[in-house]
């Protein structure tokens, strides 16, 4: 009998300490959301390298009584890396090492397309404020339009940490949907004649230019906008690893092992911010809708400015490359290439679109820096 009692008490204690006793409907819904995101990542291959860990992090975050963020351990370390803006700059280090700024250096005027596409950020910001979000939250939501995951996370942490999960999921989801979102807007806003514009071949870029650019850009942008010095500094440092020609081992580490490791931590940690309490609110749906508005407005802004540049340059710039100004490297540039090829087979726009594409990365970071300086 005593054995039976001890067994029953133990079972009760196990049950009382288990996650099941504290499990709520919200946790169940969020685990389902995580499973849907996993399905999209694995089966539909929507940004699987990012959405996969985000989805799994979302599932982990909704197990009650894990004490992930209260007790020291791996999960708390990951959370520390996110909450203290450690991971986004490290991702940018890898992005810089993977980025070829050559097309941008060969045709610097495409920087303006990267700037024009940032209109999506601010259209979403206006929309968010009209829907009742405060100015910091609106700024963080607007940055989804920049189509740059690390920058979106970087800004959200500083301006609206409670919205991080929804903003990150919206940003990465729409980035994976760029091939579906952009082409109809690009076709709607351009004529057949504009889509058929063949661009002149880019001039060769010397090693001197390639090495000087990251150094000078880091100095100028960091002095102008110190809040994004760590992001832009790491981007340019990674690019210097790549272009210097004498730091191949560092470049290799930054673009492969380091970037992959940090991606695991950043994406899992982002997913772990998606707990039911913060995520299952009406604001999440609004954020997802505003993210779509931001993407559409950014694409439209880039294409419309591309049309202006097309006229000003005497039909030497194809407006389709303007849509690549929304970052999402290199997918947005690929979309310009695909739409251009459909309009005129043999018209290769990929390298021309890479200019505004990488300009968009810098533009989004600058927009984030300006908002941090102005709104934080």
């Amino acid at each position, binding site marked *: 009998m005593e054995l039976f009692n001890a067994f029953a008490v133990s079972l009760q204690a196990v049950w009382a300490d288990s996650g099941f006793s504290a499990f709520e409907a919200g946790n169940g819904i969020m685990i389902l959301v995580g499973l849907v995101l996993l399905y999209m990542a694995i089966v539909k291959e929507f940004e699987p390298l990012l959405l996969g860990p985000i989805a799994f992090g979302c599932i982990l975050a909704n197990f009650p009584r894990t004490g992930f963020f209260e007790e020291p351990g791996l999960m708390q370390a990951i959370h520390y890396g996110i909450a203290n803006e450690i991971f986004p700059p490290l991702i940018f280090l890898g992005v810089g090492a993977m980025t070829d700024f050559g097309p941008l250096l060969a045709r610097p005027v495409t920087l303006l397309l990267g700037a024009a596409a940032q209109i999506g950020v*601010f259209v979403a*910001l206006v929309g968010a404020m009209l829907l009742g979000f405060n100015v910091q939250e609106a700024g963080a939501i607007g940055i989804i339009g920049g189509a740059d995951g690390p920058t979106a996370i970087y800004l959200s942490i500083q301006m609206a940490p409670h919205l991080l999960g929804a903003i990150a999921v919206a940003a990465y989801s729409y980035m994976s949907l760029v091939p579906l979102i952009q082409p109809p807007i690009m076709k709607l806003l351009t004529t057949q004649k504009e889509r058929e514009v063949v661009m002149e071949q880019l001039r060769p870029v010397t090693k001197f*230019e390639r090495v000087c650019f990251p150094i000078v850009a880091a100095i100028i942008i960091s002095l102008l906008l110190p809040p994004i010095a760590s992001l832009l500094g790491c981007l340019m440092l990674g690019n210097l690893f790549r272009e210097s020609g004498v730091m191949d081992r560092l470049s290799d580490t930054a673009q492969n092992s380091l970037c992959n490791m940090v991606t695991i931590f950043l994406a899992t940690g982002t997913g772990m911010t998606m707990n039911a309490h913060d995520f299952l609110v009406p604001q999440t749906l609004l954020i997802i809708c505003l993210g779509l508005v931001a993407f559409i407005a950014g694409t439209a802004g880039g294409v419309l400015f591309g049309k202006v540049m097309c006229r000003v340059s005497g039909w030497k710039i194809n407006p389709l490359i303007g849509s690549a100004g929304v970052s999402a490297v290199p997918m947005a540039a690929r979309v310009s290439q695909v739409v251009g090829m459909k309009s005129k087979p043999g018209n290769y726009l990929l390298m021309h679109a890479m200019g505004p594409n990488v300009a968009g990365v810098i533009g989004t970071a600058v927009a984030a820096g300006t908002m941090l300086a*102005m709104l934080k």
Partner: protein
Amino acid sequence: MSHPVTTNPLIIMLINMTVVFLVLTALGLVINLIHVIDPTRPKEKKQEEALPAEPVAAAEPAPVAEAAVDEKGISPEIVAVIAAAIASYGYGVEQIRAIRPIQRDGWKNSGRMRLSNRRS
């Protein structure tokens, strides 16, 4: 957290877009400046200067290639495609001396290779 400068969304939009354009324009100017002070640039310029003289003298190669077209049976479209492919690697059309079909039968070669592979 300090107070934001303004909460008017349109003013925020206007100021931010202006700053983004100004910063990226400044960056564009810097890129142009780097290009201008590039010590490796004059060599390229000399090459570029040397080239225009050639096309005048060597402006004929394209018609020559076209003349060869009629004789050898290569259509102007194929010549254009080959020229475009070469141009995409950074060479001028004037640098193409001739486009001639190789006097080999691809099917024969393929058959030969298959036979030799079987033997080995």
